[in-house]
């Protein structure tokens, strides 16, 4: 149906869709988990916060697992090199992710203030650390990851963990942390009321300001940074490996795509408009619209980064010619085709029953509701 080259582009879009789905859905759970100890002052308040996402966090987390699985299936080179190269970063992420399922499920199983308070902070760690690390990872893509590949396609990571904590990467980490806090905050503003809602709205304003400032600084920093550009490459309609191209290092090169196609500025614009509009909408009590608009800002942020890197998906600082692009990391044409059909069939189904679940559980979560269902809720 599609030729190989088109399929490769489609899969770049689909990986993007899964990452955006993850950031919108699991992202708001991570935001809520990050806000938990600050928004909820008492046990029952914290239970209100947790129970806004209690029926949904498990399903939402699957966006993360599926994005990982899809990268394995569609971009095996990226999966192999990213996970083994960024060894300790990945294990740190994994360790943080341990606390969330267990924290949600076990926290309210024992009625002891100490037990519950400890779990609340573990949920905070399990939510905020991944939110931060995703940004740090994206930041490192722009800086380039120190890896090389040999003739048998075995990869070697030549850097160390602390190298990943470059100031630019940390700045992008703050962007993603505040972004997901806003995503969670706009959700909480919709599902809570009274004093909790007031507190959330205040935090949203602070997170919004930090997010916009850091996003802008990161963008300006990018103009001074070296980017990459493919100058010569084998036929992308045939099987390729990452050693079959030439790459040039270009100062400010990560903005080339924006200047070549000005329409792409729509993505960073979406971030500014989305964040500001969300804050305006929440002050006018239009919280549901606020959440939807904030989700568009999340989409804008990820697309801003993805479009800047295009066609690269994982640049190498060790040897730019070995950088991974969407042309040379893809699975075989056959696999991309099979997986495309799987996505076409299942993603609409997933969206349908997920919306149904949200509809069943709709409405404000209140202190009275938590007290009335004391034994059944988280």
């Amino acid at each position, binding site marked *: 149906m599609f030729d190989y080259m088109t399929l490769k582009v489609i899969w770049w879009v689909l990986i993007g869709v899964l990452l955006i789905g993850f950031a919108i859905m699991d992202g708001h759970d991570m935001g809520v988990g990050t806000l938990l100890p600050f928004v909820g002052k008492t046990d029952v308040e914290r239970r209100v916060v947790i129970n806004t996402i*209690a*029926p*949904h*966090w*498990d*399903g939402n*987390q*699957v966006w993360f*697992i*599926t994005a*990982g*699985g899809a990268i*394995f*299936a*569609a971009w*095996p*080179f990226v*999966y*192999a090199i990213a*996970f*083994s190269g960024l*060894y*300790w970063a990945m*294990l740190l992420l*994994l*360790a943080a*992710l*341990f606390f969330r*399922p*267990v924290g949600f*499920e*076990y926290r309210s*199983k*024992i*009625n002891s203030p100490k037990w519950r308070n400890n779990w609340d902070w573990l949920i905070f760690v399990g939510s905020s650390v991944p939110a931060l690390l995703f940004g740090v990872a994206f930041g490192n893509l722009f800086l380039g990851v120190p890896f090389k590949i040999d*003739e048998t396609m*075995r*990869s*070697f990571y030549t850097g160390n963990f602390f190298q990943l904590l470059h100031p630019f990467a940390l700045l992008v980490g703050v962007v993603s942390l505040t972004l997901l806090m806003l995503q969670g905050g706009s959700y909480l503003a919709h599902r809570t009321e009274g004093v909790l809602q007031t507190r959330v709205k205040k935090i949203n304003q602070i997170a919004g300001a930090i997010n916009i400032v850091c996003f802008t600084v990161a963008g300006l920093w990018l103009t001074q940074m070296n980017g990459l550009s493919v100058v010569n490459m084998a036929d992308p309609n045939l*099987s*390729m*490996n990452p050693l079959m191209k030439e790459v040039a290092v270009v100062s400010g090169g990560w903005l080339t795509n924006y200047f070549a196609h000005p329409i792409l500025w729509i993505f960073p614009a979406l971030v500014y408009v989305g964040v500001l509009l969300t804050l305006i909408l929440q002050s006018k009590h239009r919280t549901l619209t606020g959440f939807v608009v904030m989700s568009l800002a999340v989409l804008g942020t990820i697309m801003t980064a993805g479009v800047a890197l295009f066609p690269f998906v994982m640049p190498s600082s060790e040897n730019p010619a070995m950088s991974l692009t969407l042309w040379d990391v893809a*699975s*075989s044409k*056959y696999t991309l085709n*099979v*997986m495309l059909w*799987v*996505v076409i069939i*299942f*993603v609409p189904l*997933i969206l349908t*029953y997920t919306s149904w*679940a949200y509809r*069943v*559980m709709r409405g404000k979560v209140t202190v009275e509701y938590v007290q009335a*269902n*004391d*034994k*059944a809720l988280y």
Partner: protein
Amino acid sequence: MIDAGAVDAARLQFAVTALYHFIFVPLTLGLSFILVAMELTYVMSGKQIYKDMTKFWGKLFGINFALGVTTGITMEFQFGTNWAYYSHYVGDIFGAPLAIEGLMAFFLESTMIGLFFFGWDRLSKGKHLLVTALLALASNLSAVLILIANGWMQYPVGSEFNPVTMRMELTSFSEILFNVVAQDKFVHTVSAGYVTGSVFVMGISAWYLLKGKHIEFAKRSIRIASAFGLASALSVVILGDESGYAVGEHQQAKLAAMEGMWETEPAPAGFNLIAFPNEAEQKNDFAIHIPYAMGLIATRSTDTVLPGIKDIREKNAVRVENGIKGVLALEKMKQDPSDAQAKSIMLEHQKDLGYGLLAKKYSADLNQVTPEQIKQAAHDTVPQVAPLFWTFRVMVLLGFTYIAFFIYAFWASGNNVIHEKKRFLRFALWLLPTPWIATSFGWFVAEYGRQPWTVTGILPTHLSASSVSAGEVWASLAGFVLFYTGLLIVELYLMFKYARLGPTVLTEQVH
């Protein structure tokens, strides 16, 4: 290049984290269907006690499920962190079922579990039952897909090598899906899960009866668990045999090792009930031998010969030699892609490439391989006998024990005398931890039995690991052990607390 210490550490890490993950998986598989049976009874009879049963066993299900999810994420990460070359080499094939598992099973399972716990007052009886049924169905669907992935590692079909990308690529998705090994493994594995769930409910209910509390609740739970358990125990043994049949056809090395079959016997081969394998001399020091049995079970015929270990090793020495020729030709092609002669040699020996790679363990430069090293590589193609021989027998023994156990329970429960059978109830309590021994040993047989390969005949384990140092893998393993021990203590603490309190947890505070 590849740190041999890192390979060993990575294998140990995989074994530890996979077996730990599989503490929680079988209970999820089994308990989910028991919940469906309980809730169905509630919907049909309208009796509150069945709703309480669903909710109470559901609480224990939830405590277990949280760790199943947590430890499952580790498994997905680990292919990339510790087994990067494996991920590159077979990701084109292996990645697909993993991604489909997420899209088809995990999403449904994880969305429904939220509604299962929190939707009681918001859904009609029928809709809530549907949610529970979808939860059970999706849990089992995830097992299908991961076993399709594992089945392909055991018996790789529908794929071929691409020299440009230096990896295996998918050629037939339907062959992967309908892989006979995957199908057998699936039924065997989920049945084992159902047995685990049934033994779990039986054990805890037996404890209530022994303590003289929650009598009605326990008796009804036993009735459902014993019926489900009996059907499952029969299925796990009969379809375990089915699984052995498939192994016999495709994985003769594993079968020979499992059975301590050193020599090729005239068909049908005998079965070693008990034996003391002697690895050094390639013989059994002692054996109780049942004539004909093995050949009949494994080949379903009286005239198919099952090769013994010595013959398998001898035959594989030839494959190693041919494989080396293929790998050397491939290396030439990498230097000069237009070398037609190299290409034709590579194509000629393509099916033995994996065997050639086995020799890399002994000589990084395959031009320098000695006949002695070829012999060693061929020797490796059959895993060590004693560990497989014994774990397999313990698993089978437990399987037969469960059949007898559930027959009696089904009878005693049906005649409403189960609460009087104190000795049986104590036995049920003692049996409670054993399904975890059986399932761990089963996985050990499957995975250790596949050595020296990660993908049988295609990719040797020693080449599959990442280029990370042994120190890093040991350090991360230490981290896992630390984390997992802590999590297990918390989980068992809650599980014991809730199981002891029984259905009162639905109405009273737990301190």
